[in-house]
């Protein structure tokens, strides 16, 4: 890629930051060039972020209806999934799946809830509650 072809698309996902891209200058040699974003890349990022937000929103609605536990919402909101939450908390994936149901979650002892709180940087109250409707 030539220096002049380095995209400067002011991507919103960069939030005003710039990235370094290596490109060929007029003398035919490589230089580090700052880029304010590439439309192609930010489209891919946005797609992933939107998908996550959609899932989070859905979990919130379900949690408010009492179909899933608040953990399901907080997990997605904080960009965890069952596998990464399992790796960080030490619970098995099947345990976490159980904890996603309100019936089981509501009966969890504080020691287990604290485990989630530590990993997700939440207080007990935050973990067990949902944002106001």
């Amino acid at each position, binding site marked *: *890629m030539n220096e002049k072809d380095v995209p400067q698309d002011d991507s919103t996902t960069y939030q005003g930051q710039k990235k370094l891209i*290596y490109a060929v200058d007029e003398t035919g*040699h490589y230089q580090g060039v700052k880029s304010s974003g590439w439309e*192609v890349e930010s489209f*891919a990022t946005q797609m992933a972020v939107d998908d996550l937000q959609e899932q989070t929103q859905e979990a919130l609605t379900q949690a408010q209806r009492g179909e899933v536990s608040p953990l399901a919402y907080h997990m997605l909101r904080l960009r965890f999934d069952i596998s990464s939450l399992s*790796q960080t908390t030490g619970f098995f994936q099947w345990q976490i799946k159980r904890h996603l149901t309100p019936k089981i979650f509501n009966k969890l002892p504080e020691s287990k809830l604290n485990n989630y709180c530590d990993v997700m*940087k939440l207080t007990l109250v935050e973990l067990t509650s949902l944002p106001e409707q």
Partner: protein
Amino acid sequence: MTDIILDIDHQQSSHCESGVISTLLRSKGLNISEPMAFGLSSALTFVYLPMVKIGGLPLIAYRMPPKAIIKAVCKKLKVDLHSQTFSNQTKGMQALDNELAKGNLVGLQTSVYWLPYFPEDMRFHFNAHNLVVYGKTDKGNYLISDPVFEHLVECPAEDLQRARFAKGALAAKGRMYVVRSVPTDIDLTPHIYSSVNKTAKMMNGLLLPFFGNKGIHFLAKKIRSLSKTKPKYQKLFLGNIVRMQEEIGTGGAGFRFMFASFLDESAKLTKNDDLQAAAKEATAVGDHWREFAMDAVLFCKKRKDLSLDNVAEKLESCATHEKSLRSTLLSIKG
């Protein structure tokens, strides 16, 4: 307590690991650029692991696994790197303060998610982000040279501790490293040729179908078979490839441009025209990857009459070009 602020020559880098080792070596007077560190460690590769899922999407990487760059560079150049991990968080933070007090720049492995200075959309649970700490304020905030950022940043102690000791895949366990000494008078020439050769040999892939050229063809095959899945999954799958290739600090085209830059710099150093020609070819390979990313996104947007087969074909042409780059690299003799 007063501020500790050590001298640092912060240069923005594309990738965290090559950037950090370049910063640490330069601070000791060994002038190794980011592309040179990347090239010398023979970190360029391609990996597609369909069975390893991250957020429901397969793992795709364009370089060797984390820690490989720092390890390889230090081993090759006989740099004395002191690296340690901690089971006790308080001791881990104390050790960092001790090194700073001694006047040493400290490299840390951290989780991107818990670093508050990262843009919201780029925060995800990835535990192998590298950065350099160059000081601490009297309020207890750490001063950080994060290689992928334009400017120097600051981070509260509590957040940095959380980022260092985040658990999970690739957990850092508080890993910190300090360059103790670097050799003087290094001749890079033999290292350049050996690492170019090693990169070329790896480009074909291993016995398994997940790596190098074979991996690219394997991924192309998978893209063709996506026609049986839901449109939403097709989009997320292709978007994931583009993100791994462009978004997460690769210097463009999944490290291909950084590698070309390494060849370019090596050609200047060794005055070898073959390396210069190879740099040009590597640039063309990178351009192909960028075109592939564009096609993949165009497919997601449904703007052009592109089919999954077209996208897969573009990817296969990347593989063809890499194959010819491989034979060029193998023919280079020092």
